């Protein structure tokens, strides 16, 4: 019996490998309405994760554990490997070695396991990565429509709600080219939230935002943290934003995690690299 199941699984894997090899195993799964309406924070474990580009190591044996429901920020200077680490978690890059366990499942980029993915994740890209050929409303509703999760009337309501949540009520018909950088970022956040994810990744969410909009975004994330059970991972070099929102913060330097702790622990760190990053003149922590 077990042998038969193993053989069946291999059969599926071979077929998927044959029919999905070009798209790097982007296997589409369906989702029920009931599953959509409930989200749960999920945990992540990273073990000895390494990645090099053209022989240049970018991640050096990263070990990290993120608790379910946590808001976790990865901070550090530009070019230290933060976004590369995030792209591994979002399955957009394959590690050279090491493993990532999300929801206790090893995401080893094998087809069979991808099909069994029982959680929803979404990512807010640094460039927003909105679909230029679609309107704001269509961008936000794309996933819901593609997965056929809800009836059309309900989808339009979700779009309205998510846009209101990010302060862009009534902008559904606008084209992406008509939006400012900050508005694009907020639409990207609304698109991610429309999935009602268990796990959400933000790659430099405040990079193009003015201080007022950054505050609004911080309020949105804090609000979600209180109301919805989801795990949030933020990659940012916006120090104050990360320290204000996060339950825990990790600092990366040169492809390694050099410090990890609560915002208070990070502020008190004796590590000179951390202190140099925290206490800069223009963007550092105020009042020190």
């Amino acid at each position, binding site marked *: 019996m077990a042998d038969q199941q193993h053989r069946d699984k291999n059969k599926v894997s071979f077929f998927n490998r*044959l*029919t*999905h*090899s*070009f*798209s*790097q195993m*982007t*296997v*589409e*799964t369906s989702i029920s309405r009931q599953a959509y309406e409930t989200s749960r924070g999920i945990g992540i474990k990273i073990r000895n994760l390494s990645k090099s580009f053209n022989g240049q190591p970018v991640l050096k044996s990263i070990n990290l554990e993120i608790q379910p429901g946590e808001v976790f920020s990865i901070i550090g200077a530009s070019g230290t490997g933060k976004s590369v680490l995030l*792209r591994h978690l*979002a*399955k*957009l890059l394959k590690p050279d070695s090491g493993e990532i366990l999300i929801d206790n499942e090893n995401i080893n980029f094998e087809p069979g396991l991808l099909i069994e993915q029982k959680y929803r*994740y*979404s*990512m807010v*890209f640094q*460039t927003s*990565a*909105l*679909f*230029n050929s679609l309107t704001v409303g269509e961008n936000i509703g*794309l*996933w819901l429509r*593609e*997965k056929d999760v809800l009836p059309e009337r309900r989808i339009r309501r979700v779009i309205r709600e998510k846009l209101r949540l990010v302060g862009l009520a009534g902008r559904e018909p606008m084209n992406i080219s008509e939006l400012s950088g900050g508005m694009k970022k907020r639409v990207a956040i609304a*698109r991610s939230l429309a*999935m009602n994810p268990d796990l959400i990744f933000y790659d430099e969410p405040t990079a193009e935002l003015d201080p007022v909009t950054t505050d609004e975004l911080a309020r949105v994330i804090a609000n979600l943290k209180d109301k919805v059970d989801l795990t949030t991972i933020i990659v940012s070099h916006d120090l104050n934003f990360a320290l204000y929102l996060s339950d825990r913060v990790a600092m990366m330097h040169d492809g390694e995690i050099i410090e990890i702790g609560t915002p208070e622990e990070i502020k008190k760190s004796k590590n000179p690299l951390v202190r140099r990053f925290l206490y800069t003149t223009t963007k550092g922590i105020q009042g020190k």
Partner: protein
Amino acid sequence: MLTRLGQILLTTAQNLGEMLALLVETLFYFKDAFRNRVAIVAQLYEVGVGTLPIAVLMSLFIGMVLALQTGSQLALLGVQEKIGAIVGLSMAKELGPVLTSLLIAGRVGSSMAAEVGAMQVYEEIDAMRTLEINPVRYLAMPRLIACLLAVPMLTVFSFIVGVTGGAVISDINPAINVPMTVYYDVLVRALDMSEILNGLVKATVFGGIVALVGCYVGFKTTGGARGIGQATTRSVVMSFLMIFIADYLLTRFMM
């Protein structure tokens, strides 16, 4: 020298292998064609309706030039009444499918490569992956279906217009002076259904090549605006080459 040759062979083999993988995955997603019907109709409009005016104009002039040049030579031998057969066979078997496909490769294939390439460069395809939307199903499948349907249809138009252009020139040019009735009589006698089908098979294969190459080059684009520009050029060059090679092989096979 040998190392360089080996590298070129390896790159070519890799490109062909990846293109085959893209083809298999795209064909797999044909099962979702009904679900993506809106995108398919939009692509059909872009490929078919958008290209029709220029395809018609091109075929008209090709038919006219073919009649003019061949007709005047035939007239020297006193067999100018055969002009209908020559224009008809050339347009049905070779010029119609090949030139229409080259036009599609230049007009549509390049724009596919640029559009998909821009989506690749600006992380839209990565975003699609995180939304668990397969980019091959969402982008390549509608484009391939549209090209497979639109290019043969355009070839039919191209044939009709080209043959008509040839008929007009054969009739009005005093050096040829073949009446339209004679032209069509000879053409109908020379042309049978299998020849037209040969042309349509070629057009379908070439249409598939254009869409596949356009999407493949787009998916493999890297390096910002410059990369997108290079992808556009690469898609046209690759499509042209593959159309010529496929044309020879199909002609040999269907002889």
